[in-house]
């Protein structure tokens, strides 16, 4: 019952918004603001006849590659830095500098060493995503209780076990926060990176539609992008609920 109610609560506003869009746009003859009905009619022929594999799949692959790279680098570097106060002091100004550079500005530079292929796009995504993960991992490592560190040492936990059972899990509430921020950045950067030197991908296709005045198709692409964002957020929430079940329980208890 509560489950049904929470589903209802989560869907009522989107449904209202879509309905509002549907009815306000129904009689629109504005070229750039076509009726939602026309946009939705375009969806099957635009996306389900080859573009899912040709454009959506490459985008998703780039997204997962860039995001995974950012997770791997951000978590491992962040935890290492979080454990060492001197290292933290050395690195923090540099991180503040690097994280304030918007990745799109770096695209031409990244293009020079990473080329114009997928590796460039993956690097752009990873570069943008790594900061919230890294900085939150630093915080996460710092937040782990001294007594737990002592416990791990006393009971002879080796480096691998300490990383897996103490650092990773102990920092996981912070890491998840960073990873959630990074996920929305990743989606934005997939689209942006595909505006540079791309020949396929969702972002690329949307810009091509826009440029060739295929406006309903362009809108359908934007809708698809939004839908992918919603699905990824849902998947993230599922993973989060699993990984952080202990944390939510602990917080409820306190």
């Amino acid at each position, binding site marked *: 019952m509560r489950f049904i109610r929470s589903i209802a609560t989560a869907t009522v506003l989107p449904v209202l918004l879509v309905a509002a869009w549907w009815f306000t746009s129904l009689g629109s003859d504005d070229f750039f603001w076509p009726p939602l009905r026309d946009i939705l009619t375009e969806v099957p022929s635009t996306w389900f006849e080859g573009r899912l594999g040709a454009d959506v799949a490459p985008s998703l692959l780039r997204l997962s590659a860039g995001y995974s790279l950012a997770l791997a680098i951000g978590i491992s570097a962040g935890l290492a830095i979080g454990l060492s106060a001197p290292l933290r002091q050395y690195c923090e100004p540099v991180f503040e500098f690097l994280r304030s550079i918007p990745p799109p500005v770096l695209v031409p530079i990244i293009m*020079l060493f990473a080329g*114009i292929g997928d590796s460039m796009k993956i690097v752009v995504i990873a570069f943008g995503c790594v900061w919230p993960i890294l900085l939150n991992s630093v915080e996460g490592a710092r937040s782990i209780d001294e007594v737990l560190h002592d416990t791990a040492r006393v009971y002879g936990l080796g480096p691998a076990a300490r990383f897996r059972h103490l650092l990773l899990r102990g920092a996981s509430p912070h890491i998840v926060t960073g990873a959630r921020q990074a996920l929305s950045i990743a989606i934005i950067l997939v689209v942006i990176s595909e505006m540079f030197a791309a020949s396929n991908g969702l972002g690329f296709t949307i810009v091509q539609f826009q*440029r060739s005045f295929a406006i309903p198709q362009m809108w359908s692409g934007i809708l698809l992008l939004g839908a992918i964002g919603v699905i990824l957020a849902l998947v993230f929430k599922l993973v989060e609920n699993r990984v952080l079940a202990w944390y939510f329980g602990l917080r409820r208890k306190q």
Partner: protein
Amino acid sequence: MNRVGRTLSVLVALTLVAGCGGGGESADGLREVTIGLVPAAVTAAIHVGIDQKFFEQEGLKPSIETGQGGAALLPAVASGQMEFASSTPVSLLMARDRGLKVRAITPWTGDGTSADGTVKSSNVVLAKDPSIRSARDLEGRTVAINALRSVGDLTIREAVRHAGGNPDKVTFVEMGFADMPGALAQGHVDGIWTAEPFITTLVAKGHHAVKQTDNSDAVPDMATQLIFTSQKLIDDDPDLVAAMTRALGKTLAYVKDNPDKVRARIPTVFAELDPAIVKRLDLDVYETQLRREPLERIGRLLELEKWIKPPADIAGLLP
């Protein structure tokens, strides 16, 4: 140019309710109008026209808007945010094909034949690899252009086809003109579709122009940009459109004969431009005649590429 900005500005343009332009009347009784142009040194010509009072004589007070990228100008004019703007005939024909009611009023820039009889071309493919000599050698290669589905790929594909090659075997990637020399030097692309001042610099570094890839090879007397407005404005305010057409016509005729006036005006619109480059700039680009043949040629290429449904709406585009 900034593609992110372009996309965003389109979205902004879309969300703004149509019709916030329209222009008013200034204190001196002149009609205020906005002309949207791609940021480039050639915009100085309008200032020369203003200096010469061509617009004032027609009761107009134009302001020039270069803040938005090329792709945002079409929606801006169509939605009435600005009255006039420049765009490529390729974009305009594609827009008409999709049902966007835009119409050219005057020419703007082109690859016209210069006074001394030589063809001035704005764009050509440069390569580093000496084995890429002619358009046909681009098969299996990657060529950088400033925008996909626009003049660059349309003319290069035609050049390859004309040379007996298969244009589908050429890969096009999109990047800003400024990023192209680096990508070519690093070997990320095999050819770049570029213009001055890059051509002179790169040829001096040992790069060479690929034969048959001039715009003029695919489309003789190519019009690179036209000034256009919306059909709605033509219907609602034909006098304004006529006045603007006359003022622009006078301006174009004047700057064609007085390129030095334009050159002198460039620093006031492009303060950051290197004076040495200003001195070298080829300003023999202004068109005075809106010719039908190059547009028909472009239309045929668009049909051939299936970028539009035949027939190309040349009559709808021309005034």
